[in-house]
């Protein structure tokens, strides 16, 4: 196969497929065992300085914010993050200096809410490096290659663009069609965190709504922390096994955190807390503001429940439930901030 082009992006999280199999053999137990623990313990055990981390969900939807805040609390440094439409999670981790390398599909923006002042400042002052570019399809096929135990997946996206030139892909002549094809390399995050609707104590998890990239991400991550709205009985999982999105043997920790995606959405449960997001977008315009946010919402609280109380408690949570079910009108408090 002739090599036609080589992207100059840094190759993050790639392993030889045999090395990857060996790691699974030695580290991923097939024993049904209780993996429940606190978020403090999960982060302390499975997130290390310098790790390549990836967060589940999409944008502000179904994000394991409890883990994100705990990473800041435990002061993990020099993290590399997958910018796979990573929004609030990536923004707070980059702005606070815990993530200093990103491979970008979509980062530094809050979709319709505008760009992220905090993380953009870090990139534009050289404190956070974009080590590779890719596309959303490109990133999720990196996970797919890894979960399949393959070195790469061929695709026809990104060809001819600077996105490919700054990626870690290679372009070769396809031996079947004779046409150029891009090879996206497998990516195995050191640790991923995925927030789900229901999970048993072993890690068998159900997700309602779109899976986004979490089918693939859960299976390729070397370590996987599941945070769940509710821990359910194993019998509940076995009654409808076709609803299991993530099987227990890929899971390393199970943490029950109600409203654990806040201020992000949990489909079918609660909507975005736009007031909180607007407060972050406003505060993160300065590095002092970022410190103020962290002091207020991360360091001064003892638990996620305390954090929720600070964000408006039961009254706010009931409102977010009504918003999810279209019983309250849309608001856009960040509009005056942009």
């Amino acid at each position: 196969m002739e090599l036609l082009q080589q992207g100059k992006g840094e190759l993050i999280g790639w392993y030889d497929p045999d090395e990857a199999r060996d790691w699974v053999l030695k580290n991923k137990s097939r024993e049904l065992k209780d993996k429940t623990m606190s978020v403090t313990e999960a982060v302390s055990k499975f997130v290390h300085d310098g790790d390549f981390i990836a967060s589940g969900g999409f944008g502000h939807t179904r994000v394991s914010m409890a883990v994100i805040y705990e990473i800041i609390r435990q002061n993990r440094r020099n993290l590399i993050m997958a910018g796979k439409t990573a929004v609030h999670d990536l923004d707070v981790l980059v702005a606070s200096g815990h993530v200093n390398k990103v491979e970008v599909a979509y980062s530094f923006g809050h979709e319709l809410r505008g760009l992220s002042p905090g993380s953009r400042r870090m990139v534009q002052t050289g404190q956070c490096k974009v080590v590779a570019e890719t596309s959303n399809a490109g990133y999720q096929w990196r996970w797919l290659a890894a979960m399949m135990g393959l070195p790469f997946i061929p695709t026809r996206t990104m060809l001819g663009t600077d996105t490919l030139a700054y990626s870690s892909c290679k372009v070769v002549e396809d031996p079947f069609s004779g046409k150029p094809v891009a090879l996206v390399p497998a990516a195995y995050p050191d640790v991923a965190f995925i927030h789900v609707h229901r999970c048993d104590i072993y890690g068998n998890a159900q997700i309602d709504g779109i899976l986004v990239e979490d089918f693939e991400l859960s299976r390729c991550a070397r370590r996987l922390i599941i945070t769940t709205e509710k821990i359910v009985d194993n019998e509940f999982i076995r009654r409808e096994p076709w609803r299991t999105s993530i099987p227990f043997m890929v899971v390393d920790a199970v943490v029950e955190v109600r409203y654990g995606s806040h201020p992000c959405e949990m489909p079918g449960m609660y909507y975005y807390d736009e007031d909180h997001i607007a407060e972050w977008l406003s505060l993160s315009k300065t590095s002092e503001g970022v410190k103020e946010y962290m002091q207020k919402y991360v360091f001064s609280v003892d638990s996620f429940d305390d954090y929720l109380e600070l964000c408006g408690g039961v009254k706010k949570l009931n409102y977010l439930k009504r918003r999810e079910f279209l019983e309250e009108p849309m608001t856009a408090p960040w509009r005056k901030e942009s």
Partner: protein
Amino acid sequence: MSIKQSKYNIREFLAFSGARVLEDKKSVFVGTGLPIVAAALAQKTHAPNLLIVFEAGGLGPQLPELAISVGESRTFHRAIAASSMHDVMSLSQAGYIDYGFLGAAQMDMYGNINTTVIGDHDLPQARLPGSGGANDVASFSHKLIIIIANQSKRTFVNKLDFLTTPGYLDGPGARERAGLPKDTGPYRVITQLGIYGFDEGTKRLKLISLHPGVSLGEVKENSSFGILIPDEVETSPEPTDEDLRILRQEIDSAGIVLGK
């Protein structure tokens, strides 16, 4: 220009113009903002069976209100499926997407788009979000529609700072040479001044219609590159009162995308 004084604003006109391009019984892969609004308007008017597709897994929703994110629960409200990015991107690569629909910050005469950086890549003046799903949408869709709300010399540029998303790359045949699916590429560009297509021979941007009250001079002045001008230039159609009512009351009642 006249749009400012008329019964609709520029963003409403852009949404309406985008909706008109879309056809019933076809599929459209939409990006954030105006493309969502335009697809929703098409679905509520002439294209009730328009299959709207979102990158995170929403297939065929009927949007109950404006989606803030292309991955939130509204994107699979009353949908035919809530699947995954792998599913949506695979269907797209396999040829199931008729129209891709994107917004853009900077474009060149071949319809290539930049949403990555202004300035140097490694230490940029302005860091933008990157491709997201845009490169995939532009690579895979049979026809790509691009909305740029603020056509000017700064947004219609000779050379992009970064070619994030493929148009016709550097001209005829370039997409196929690079390995992109054949017979794909930009189809329409809609700005606050007019509606454009691409010349078949040169793959360069070519004017189709001017919005009411806009002059040819304005179109030329607000571009760094030469826009091909055909002998006959039409006037873009205007939205009806009913189109405007749907946009304002049913699709974006808070005025988040369309403004108040």
